[in-house]
C-alpha cells in the first residue's frame, strides 16, 4: 500500500470523492470532486471502485515524498505532474517506489484542477458515507481541511496487478471531450419563468467572464445583466442542484458547484449539463464563457457517455495489465497467459497508439 508524506501542500489540495449524497435533507452539502469525470476515469484507470477518493489538486500542485510504493495517475487538467522532476503528465499511470518525489511543475495550458488518484484510493475516515472534505463544516478528508505539510496520505488495498500499470496511458479518444471553447449548455427549467424574454436572450447571446470570486462553492460570472420579470429575483428557499445557474437581483449568473449550500432563495434559470460543469470548473478567473440552451435529454446522454468512457477506461486497463510484465504496450494476436496460477487463452487487439 502506498504512503506519501506531504512536503508542500500546494495551493489547495483536498481529499475528494463522488460526494456526500443522502444528507442534503439534513443541510449537509454534497461536496466531492469538482471535475467528476476526471476523478471517475482516474479510478477506472487504476481499477479502483468508483467511490474511491483522490487528492483534488488546484492550479499549484503539492510536493509529496513516497514512503511506501504503489501506482498513481493524475487526471484532469495538465498541471505538470512529475516524478523526481521528470514529467509524467496527465492520464498516464506510474508506479512509485520509496524515495520518489511527486511534484507539479505548473499548468500546461487550459485547466486548473486535477486528481492524483492512487491505486486503492486515498484513505480517509468515511463521514456520512463519504471521504469528501467539506471545509466549511470541517468534515471529511484529513480533519476536514486542505492538506498541510507533514500530513501522511495512505492508499487503500490496490486492485491486483497494480505493478503492471506503469506507463498505462489513456488515449485521447477515450477521454470525454471537455467542450473547451464551446458554449456551456444550460438545461433550462426551475424558475425559468422569472426571467424576461429579453433577459434570456441576453444570457444566451452574451459573453461572461469567470471572476476571481469563484471557489468550490460557486463560480461567479460578470457580464451583461440578465433581467428578471416584476416577480423579482427572490424565491422562498428551494433546493440547489449541482450546476444550477442562479441569478440574484444583480443579474449576474452564479453557477453552483460541489460545495454549494443545499438550499437557497435566488431564482435559477436552469442547470448546466455534466460535461459543461466539468468544463467550467477548469476555467481560471478571466476566462470568457458563453451559454446555449439544452434539453434534459442531452444532459442524460452526457451522463451515459461519461459512464461508457469510465467502462472503456476499465477495459483498457485490463488489457494493459494482462500483457504481463515487460510488455511495453498491448500486442495484437492470440496467446496463452498464466496469471496468479490460472491459465487463460487470450486474443488481444492493439488499441493503444503511441
Amino acid at each position, binding site marked *: 500500500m502506498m504512503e506519501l508524506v506531504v512536503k508542500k501542500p500546494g495551493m489547495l489540495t483536498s481529499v475528494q470523492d463522488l460526494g456526500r449524497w443522502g444528507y*442534503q435533507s439534513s*443541510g449537509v452539502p454534497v461536496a466531492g470532486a469538482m471535475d467528476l469525470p476526471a476523478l471517475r476515469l482516474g479510478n477506472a484507470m487504476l481499477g479502483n471502485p468508483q467511490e474511491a477518493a483522490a487528492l483534488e489538486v488546484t492550479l499549484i500542485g503539492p510536493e509529496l515524498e513516497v514512503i511506501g510504493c504503489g501506482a498513481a495517475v493524475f487526471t484532469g487538467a495538465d498541471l505538470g505532474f512529475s516524478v523526481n522532476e521528470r514529467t509524467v503528465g496527465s492520464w498516464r499511470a506510474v508506479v512509485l517506489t520509496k524515495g520518489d518525489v511527486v511534484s507539479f511543475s505548473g499548468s500546461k495550458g487550459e485547466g486548473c484542477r486535477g486528481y492524483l488518484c492512487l491505486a486503492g484510493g486515498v484513505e480517509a475516515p468515511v463521514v456520512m458515507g463519504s471521504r469528501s472534505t467539506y471545509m466549511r463544516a470541517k468534515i471529511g478528508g484529513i480533519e476536514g481541511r486542505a492538506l498541510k505539510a507533514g500530513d501522511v496520505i495512505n492508499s487503500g488495498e490496490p486492485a491486483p496487478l497494480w505493478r503492471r500499470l506503469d506507463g498505462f496511458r489513456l488515449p485521447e479518444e477515450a477521454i470525454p471531450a471537455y467542450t473547451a471553447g464551446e458554449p456551456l449548455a444550460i438545461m433550462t427549467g426551475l424558475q425559468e419563468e422569472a426571467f424576461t424574454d429579453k433577459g434570456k436572450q441576453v444570457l444566451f447571446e452574451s459573453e461572461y467572464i469567470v471572476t476571481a470570486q469563484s471557489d468550490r462553492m460557486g463560480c461567479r460570472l460578470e457580464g451583461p445583466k440578465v433581467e428578471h420579470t416584476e416577480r423579482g429575483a427572490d424565491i422562498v428557499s428551494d433546493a440547489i442542484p449541482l450546476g444550477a445557474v442562479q441569478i440574484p437581483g444583480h443579474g449576474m449568473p452564479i453557477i453552483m458547484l460541489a460545495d454549494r449550500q443545499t438550499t437557497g432563495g435566488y431564482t435559477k434559470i436552469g442547470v448546466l449539463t455534466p460535461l459543461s460543469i466539468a468544463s467550467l470548473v477548469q476555467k481560471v478567473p478571466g476566462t470568457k464563457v458563453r451559454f446555449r440552451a439544452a434539453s434534459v435529454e442531452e*444532459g442524460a446522454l452526457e451522463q451515459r457517455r461519461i459512464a461508457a468512457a469510465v467502462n472503456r477506461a476499465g477495459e483498457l486497463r485490463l488489457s494493459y495489465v494482462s500483457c504481463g510484465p515487460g510488455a511495453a504496450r498491448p500486442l495484437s494476436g492470440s496467446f496463452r497467459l498464466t496469471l496468479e496460477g490460472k491459465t487463460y487463452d487470450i486474443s488481444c487487439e492493439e488499441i493503444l497508439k503511441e
Partner: protein
Amino acid sequence: MSVAIYIDDPKYLNAGESCVVAEFADEIDRGANDAVMNLKKHLLNQKNIPIVECLPTYRSLAIYFDSTAVSAQEVIAEARSAPKAAGEEAGAHMSISIPVCYGGEYGPDIANVARHAGISEEEVIKRHSARTCHCYMIGFLPGFAYLGGMDETIATPRLANPRTVIKGGSVGIAGKQTGIYPIDSPGGWQLIGRTPLRLFTPEAARPTLIEAGYEVRFLPVTEEEYKKIAAETAVGGYEALITEAK
C-alpha cells in the same frame, strides 16, 4: 402578488438531467409542506425507480435520481402515483424539546428583542417558549432548521452588523423566524439564548437532531441546568426528548 398553492397537482420543474422538483406552492404554506413530506415518504418507500435522495423544502421536493438508470419522465410518473396527502395523516410528526438558557452571555440580544417588542425579557422568554414551532426544512448549514410558527409579537429585525462568529447552539430571531445555529458560523440573527444540545454530530447515525417535519418546543432552563446538560451531552449521556407529536 398572488399566492399559488397546488397541493393536489404539483408542478414538476426540470432541474437538470438528474433532478426534478415537485413544487406544491410558491409561498410558505403548511399544507404544501405536509404534501412535500407525504411525497418524500412515498418515494423513499417505493422500489420501482432508483432515487438517490429527496430534499424537502418549505413548498417543494427535490428528487435526485440516477439518470443513467431512469428518466425524469419515469420519476414524475412514480411521483404522480403517490397517494394524495390527507391533511390529518401527514400531520403525524415527531416532537422535540430543546432546552434553552435564555439571556445573559448565552443570549446577548434579548434586551434588543424586549425593547423592540415593548415587553420585559421574562416576557420574551415566556412568549418564545410558549408556542410549538414547525420545522419546515433543514438547509443553509448542516442541521440548520427553518422553523415557522413563532409568536410574531417578538419578531425583531436582524442585527445591522452581523457577528463574525456565533457559537453553535445559539438560538436567535430574524424577523418572524426563529432558529438555532447548529455550528459556529457568522450571522446576523438576534441571539436570545443557547441550547447545550448538539444539533449536528457528523459521526452519529442520525447526524442532525432536528429533522424536517418535527414539532419543536423551546424549554427554558437555568444556567445550572444548562451546564449539567452540556456536561452530559459532551460525554454522549444526554438523550434529547423526542416523542411522537399528537
